[in-house]
């Protein structure tokens, strides 16, 4: 037996405790934030909020139906365009790309995920809004798709690499063409992971605000025409939060609660899918 000097033991326990404290801070911040959003949001989260349109400014009541439909349109179009393109790019990276082209695309995709979303918003503004001469949901969808494509591409590539080579070889040995092997054997096997990536991208897009400021602009009225300025949940929260009307601030909290529910459900679902997929 030997004795560890008291000082070393104390330092050890102290630092371990501090690390525990750090982890507790991380967990605690999320807890406190969620509690605040729930407590502040739940009172204003009524059926009327979801189904009705904003009242004239200063008149109590009204809802955010226009923002909910707007977000659905903007994110929906971005998904329909961005996710297939992202999956295709991931297929290219995993199955076809040579070492040089692959490294270039992979590196660009990684760097693109680090580009601030506000810059992507300016890109959408400069490329689409100034050319078409109008703020529109489509320009917003474009910006969101630019954000989503690299994310989906990288996750798709990673799950494709998890699919064993033997499976491809077995399929090819049966005389099945390479593209059929990829689309009918590899893709279905990797589907859980691909869906994971798509859902993460969806959650990310639903929460984006900065790109929409420059592209969809926002709108206080009901609009389902994607070529016109459109409201979005995040834009509405941003707007209402800094307006000096208590009832609008309550609605901002309620909208936050609604948005958080969607995003957390998506993330938790992804987590569960991914875990069962990896079988660990």
């Amino acid at each position, binding site marked *: 037996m030997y004795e560890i000097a008291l000082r070393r033991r104390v330092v050890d326990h102290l630092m371990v405790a501090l690390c525990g404290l750090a982890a507790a801070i991380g967990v605690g911040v999320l807890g406190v934030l969620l509690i605040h959003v729930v407590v502040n949001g739940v009172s204003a989260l009524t059926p009327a909020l979801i189904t009705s349109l904003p009242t004239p400014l200063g008149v109590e009541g009204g809802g955010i139906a226009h923002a909910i439909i707007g977000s659905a349109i903007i994110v929906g179009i971005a998904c329909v365009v961005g996710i297939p393109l992202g999956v295709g790019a991931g297929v290219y990276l995993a199955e076809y790309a040579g070492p040089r082209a692959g490294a270039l695309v992979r590196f660009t995709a990684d760097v693109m995920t680090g*580009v601030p979303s506000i810059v992507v918003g300016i890109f959408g503004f*400069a490329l689409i809004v100034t050319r078409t001469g109008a703020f529109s949901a489509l320009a917003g969808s474009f910006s969101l798709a630019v954000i989503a494509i690299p994310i989906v591409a990288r996750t798709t590539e990673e799950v494709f690499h998890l699919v064993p080579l033997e499976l491809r070889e077995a399929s090819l040995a049966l005389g099945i063409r390479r*593209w059929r092997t990829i689309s009918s054997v590899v893709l279905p*096997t990797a589907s859980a992971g691909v869906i994971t990536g798509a859902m993460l991208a969806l959650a990310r897009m639903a929460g984006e605000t900065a790109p929409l400021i420059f592209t969809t602009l926002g709108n206080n009225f009901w609009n389902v025409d994607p070529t016109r300025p459109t409201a979005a949940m995040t834009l509405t929260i941003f707007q209402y939060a800094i307006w000096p009307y208590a009832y609008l601030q309550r609605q901002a909290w309620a909208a936050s609660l609604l948005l958080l529910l969607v995003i957390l459900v998506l*993330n938790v679902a992804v987590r569960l899918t991914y875990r069962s997929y990896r079988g*660990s």
Partner: protein
Amino acid sequence: MDAYLRLYRNFIFGLFTFRIARVSFERDDDNTVRAQQGTAIRLVNPIDTRLTAARGARATGPLARALAPAVGLQDALFHGAASVMGLLIVVLAALLVATMLERGIDAFSAFGPTFVVTSTWNPVVGEFGVLPAIYGTIVSSMLSLVIAVPVGIGAAIFIVELVPRWVAEPVSFIIEMLAAIPSVIIGLWGLYVVVPIVRQIEAFVGPRLSFIPLFTGPAYGIGLLAASLVLAIMVLPILTAVTRDVLRAVPSSQREGMLALGATRWETITRVVLPFGRQGIAGAIILALGRALGETLAVSMVIGNQFKISGSLFAPATTLSSLIATQFREADNPLYVSALIAAGFVLFCTTIVVNVIARLLVWRLSRVPGGRS
């Protein structure tokens, strides 16, 4: 290791051709991959079926000979489509740079380098210099790292080194969930919860430490300090997640050697684990810096958006991204818009440099064999 792939015969029902296929795969040796697909009946393209049959017959019939080039064509089309989508990412990135340059060039050519070193922001006379925004961006990002780095690394050490998996998994999941919370919601929370707390802290600290220039000025609550706190919360998840992965990549033999020599847990961590992972941890910090530099909404909601360089942490300030976000709707002439886009381009270049450095650092470390993950 078992792998099965069987394709049963196609059968024709009416005008349609179906294929019954069974694909399954299991790998039990090291328990890593398990994928299964049960029996599936699916509609197939009749042409495709005939082609498969034709290939089986070694392409002897006239029909097979006629269709043989088409088989290669399908592959080529698929390959081509995938390549186009892959290269689309590169094209989009190039287009982004080109568009930003094209639209920002007016401001760059009008002001040249003075754009980033002067402090005038006067849309009325058309003079623009973004130095205060650059100052605010750098100070708020750095301060947020000062707050978040010890917490993030501590949490990562806790997750990897100190607790069993059943504690580590949920803790790391919860911290990562912070990253999923939309920026605007963190901004809302920051504005109504963090800012009042910061105001009280400022009111308490200010009079007592006013001899230090950093802590002077009225206690607004809104300002650099609040922005840095909110930013610290936002970069915490990426810091923790990347550091956690880096620490997991440190070979277990390193720890075991140190522990066998009689070191305590903390000595093992500070003298072996952290030095081994220092490059990756530096990468994590720089990655977090990149995130902090570009963060927009939450910052613009709590920083006060005042275009002024002030030595105090209590003072309202602005950042490049919040400058763009808040001024954009007021930009009513081309030069004004161009100045904002140029500010965006400055931000873009900074984050690209920061991100590239971070990626290179993290990538190099993730290739070490023998880690825990």
